[in-house]
């Protein structure tokens, strides 16, 4: 299974969940497979999906799912101690770990070599860290969203990409419809 297979399987489960999608292909795939106003697409700024999601989770009550990648977490490794030390039980961080920088042509990341993001997250103090196979990801995400514990999921999958169009939606439109959804869910 590659990342787009996981996102395809995940789409119906997270339809109404506030979802922060990582830059590049994860956002483009989510947008193509099931565009929802509850999705916040990152059009730039590699690495910050987990931080945006944490700020969002701390500021309001609805559940927040972040679809991140191993490359982006490596870029912003300081995010994991911040997550661990600012517990938001409505926050689920899904790191789709395909061991490569998918959006730039599948160059290998260190997470696909000797570095375990699961162990890094645990060492940073994150309490509920689950490493799972690609095939089990949807169930693990479902359980995490149904629970009330901040969870970090590292889903190990194969590298590879499908062809997807770029997102042409204006960033202010993405932000505006997302904020209206957040407000409605918290009303």
């Amino acid at each position, binding site marked *: 299974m590659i990342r787009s297979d996981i996102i395809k399987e995940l789409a119906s489960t997270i339809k109404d969940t506030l979802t*922060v999608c990582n830059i590049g292909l994860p956002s483009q795939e989510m947008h193509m497979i099931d565009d929802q106003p509850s999705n*916040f697409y*990152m*059009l*730039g*700024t590699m*690495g*910050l*999906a*987990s*931080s*945006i*999601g*944490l*700020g*969002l*989770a*701390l*500021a*309001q009550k609805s559940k927040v799912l972040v679809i991140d990648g191993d490359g982006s977490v490596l870029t*912003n490794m*300081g*995010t994991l*101690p*911040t997550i661990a030390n*600012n517990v938001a039980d409505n926050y689920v961080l899904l790191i789709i770990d395909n061991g490569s920088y998918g959006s730039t042509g599948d160059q290998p990341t260190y997470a696909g070599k000797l570095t375990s993001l699961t162990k890094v997250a645990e060492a940073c103090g994150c309490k509920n860290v689950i490493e799972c196979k690609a095939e089990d990801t949807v169930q693990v995400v479902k359980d995490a969203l149904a629970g009330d514990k901040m969870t970090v999921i590292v889903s190990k999958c194969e590298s590879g990409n499908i062809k997807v169009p770029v997102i042409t939606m204006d*960033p*202010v439109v*993405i*932000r505006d419809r*997302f*904020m209206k959804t*957040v*407000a409605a869910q*918290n009303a």
Partner: protein
Amino acid sequence: MSVDNVIIDGFVNNKVEFITTVPCKQLGGVIDAAEKHPDIYHIPSNKEDEGMGLCAGAFMGGKRSAIIMQNTAIGVTINTLVTLTQYYRMPLPMLISYRGELGEPVACQAEMAVHTKALLAQINIPTYHFHKQSDADEFDKILKYTFMCNKPVAILTDASFWGGY
């Protein structure tokens, strides 16, 4: 009232409830005041771009946010300011210690000081410079301006403002 409390009260009076910080020697007092204030959720960041991500999320969650950081961080946050904060039109007050100005004992700090205003100008960030403590009288208006126009706004605060080292 200490200038640290003037700043924090300014934030609170403008309903800023979520503040992220990366420390600087000059900012020790204001960071302590943020940590102690019951109406502020203070979340230290490991790096300033991470902090801007946290602020973006908090803003979309309905809470006004702000970052407190050193001017050296302008060098590592330009991409985030441009492709996140400005691109999505989000307000972000940035209270910045302006190291490398008069009274600076560390020579290396002058190196980023000479680029600070030029970099902020290059990316069209409205920039204010607090040199005397009375300059903080404008802080309330600057915050109101920031949330009116949905832009990142820089408030540079030098050693003279904070009362030296």
